[in-house]
């Protein structure tokens, strides 16, 4: 089976976010980017499929920011093929641009399964994974924690997460797009030395992405940092002082007896 993994860079939410002075977008030049967490899990799930079922794994990404580092990491982890889509634009592709571009590319790759994060932190106009499935007219299940072979050769089992740590076992007929939330196991660690070695040896296949971008499907009027509508009462002082204050509060509230 041939599996395609889509990986995306997204803002590093540990770092402060900066909005443009016009409040119309994130200031992408000031925004640190990291691999989308659920895409990292999708990559891990694809590697597990390779190990368990001899799947051939291709990774695809848009050429934005320091995506090469992510792709070298994927190479070091053992993917079979890496494709980079050119992206000569000032901001990363949005969900619809990803879905539309991949809907053109995927039929040329002879893959039966696309796995990618079921969402990314910047998605608000569109969601790439389900919209790619719809564009391809493929099966879709999202919010998935792990995949397994089914007794039916043309289908896979996907475990969809529900509240209360409950899973729904779904049988998904191929070809399919699966939106991964979490892999069956945590993403594997790969030593920096192996990533460096992969950077020396890996060659990316390049595919041309769209040169012209469409207008967004709805008008973005303002982008801004979330104002504090309510805020905690802050305890201040040394660690010992805040600890003492907190113990007093817990006593006062009847939590400590």
């Amino acid at each position, binding site marked *: 089976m041939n599996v395609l993994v889509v990986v995306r860079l997204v803002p590093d*939410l*540990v770092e402060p*976010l900066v909005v443009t002075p016009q409040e119309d977008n994130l200031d992408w030049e000031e925004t640190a980017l990291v691999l989308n*967490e659920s895409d990292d899990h999708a990559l891990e799930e694809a590697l597990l499929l390779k190990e368990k079922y001899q799947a051939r794994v291709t990774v695809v990404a848009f050429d934005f920011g320091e995506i090469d580092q992510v792709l070298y990491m994927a190479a070091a982890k053992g993917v079979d093929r890496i494709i980079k889509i050119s992206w000569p634009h000032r901001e990363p592709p949005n969900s619809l641009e990803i879905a539309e571009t991949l809907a053109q590319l995927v039929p040329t790759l002879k893959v039966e399964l696309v796995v990618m994060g079921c*969402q990314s932190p*910047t*998605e*608000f106009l*569109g*969601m790439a*994974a*389900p*919209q790619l*499935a*719809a*564009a391809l007219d493929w*099966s*879709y*299940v*999202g*919010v998935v924690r792990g995949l397994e072979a089914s007794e039916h050769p043309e289908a896979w*089992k996907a475990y969809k*997460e*529900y*509240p*209360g*740590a*409950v*899973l729904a*076992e*779904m*049988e998904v007929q191929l070809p399919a797009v699966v939106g991964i939330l*979490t892999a069956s196991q*945590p993403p594997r660690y790969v030593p920096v030395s192996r990533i460096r070695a992969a950077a020396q040896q890996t060659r990316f296949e390049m595919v041309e992405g769209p040169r012209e971008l469409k207008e967004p*499907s*709805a*008008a*973005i*009027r303002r*982008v*801004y*940092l*979330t*104002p*504090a509508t309510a*805020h*905690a*009462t*802050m*305890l201040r002082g040394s*660690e*010992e002082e*805040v*600890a003492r204050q907190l*113990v007093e*509060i*817990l006593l006062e*509230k009847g*939590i*400590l007896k």
Partner: protein
Amino acid sequence: MSRRIAVPVEVYRGQITDLTRECLIAARLVARDEDEVVAYVFGEIPDHGNSALQLADRVVTLENGQVSQPVALAQAKLLCSKLDRKDTELVLVGSSSWGLDVGPLVAAFWGVPLVANCQGLERRQASLWATCRICAGKLLVDVEVGAQTAVVLLLPGSFLRKEVTPRATQPVMEKESVSSQEWDARVRFQRWIEPQREDVDITQAEILVAVGRGIERQENLEVAEELAEVLGGVVCGSRPVVDQGWLPPTRQVGKSGMIVKPKLYLAMGISGAPEHVEGMKDAELIVAINRDERAPIFHVAHYGIVADLFDVIPALKEALVARRQEA
């Protein structure tokens, strides 16, 4: 011109979800007098489901043997075939595990905008505006949807406490049969898998010590466990900690984890993403410790401490032990 606001009804474990009720409240609030709010139920209406559905003008029950199964692909296709896109202004779906599949698929099948992570929705003259919360709640985006047909994914907790004027009349109840040809069978529901319950039930704990990404390493969980022991509580965590396999899924608090309402929720190194807040916002007392003073967790916490959790925990443990000895 009269238009339809459609709300696909999510039934989970035999009950209409609170999030569906929120969608119906939001629909009522943005509907004009001439608009119609229509709830679409896949399969039979559950017992006790009527109070939420009272918010609709019309309730359409789609019936055959399969439609109640939670298969978003088939249900989204069915919805698109039963609804006239031109007459529909808005499809409002809750941002749940089910809704995150149904909403985007409906938008994609119809080729209309999908507005995700929506926490606010209002009508300004002829145009609908949405406010979306993204980047783990750190950023807001105001979007003018306009008058075009759109699908909106509503975040939980956005409309639950908003008041709507009760409708004077009962909703019109309709049934529509679904043929087997109308049901997309490429995805099939097989079974529910319940979590293994040999672990503690965090929904019953009165004191929860919750750890997030700030705990950094599995070995560091020990400091949280020691604090929980002194407090007489239980350790739980946010999604990143569970995803790393450091805690079992039964200890995850949030949208796809557990909904908890303890007397004390001590959030340590948790940023406060909406998915996590959904699971703990109703705790009686929330105390947050985070190095980032802008962390959204401070918007829901009653008390906050901007500090490194590894500095505060030992001091807190010491103060608790000292207090116990004094008593």
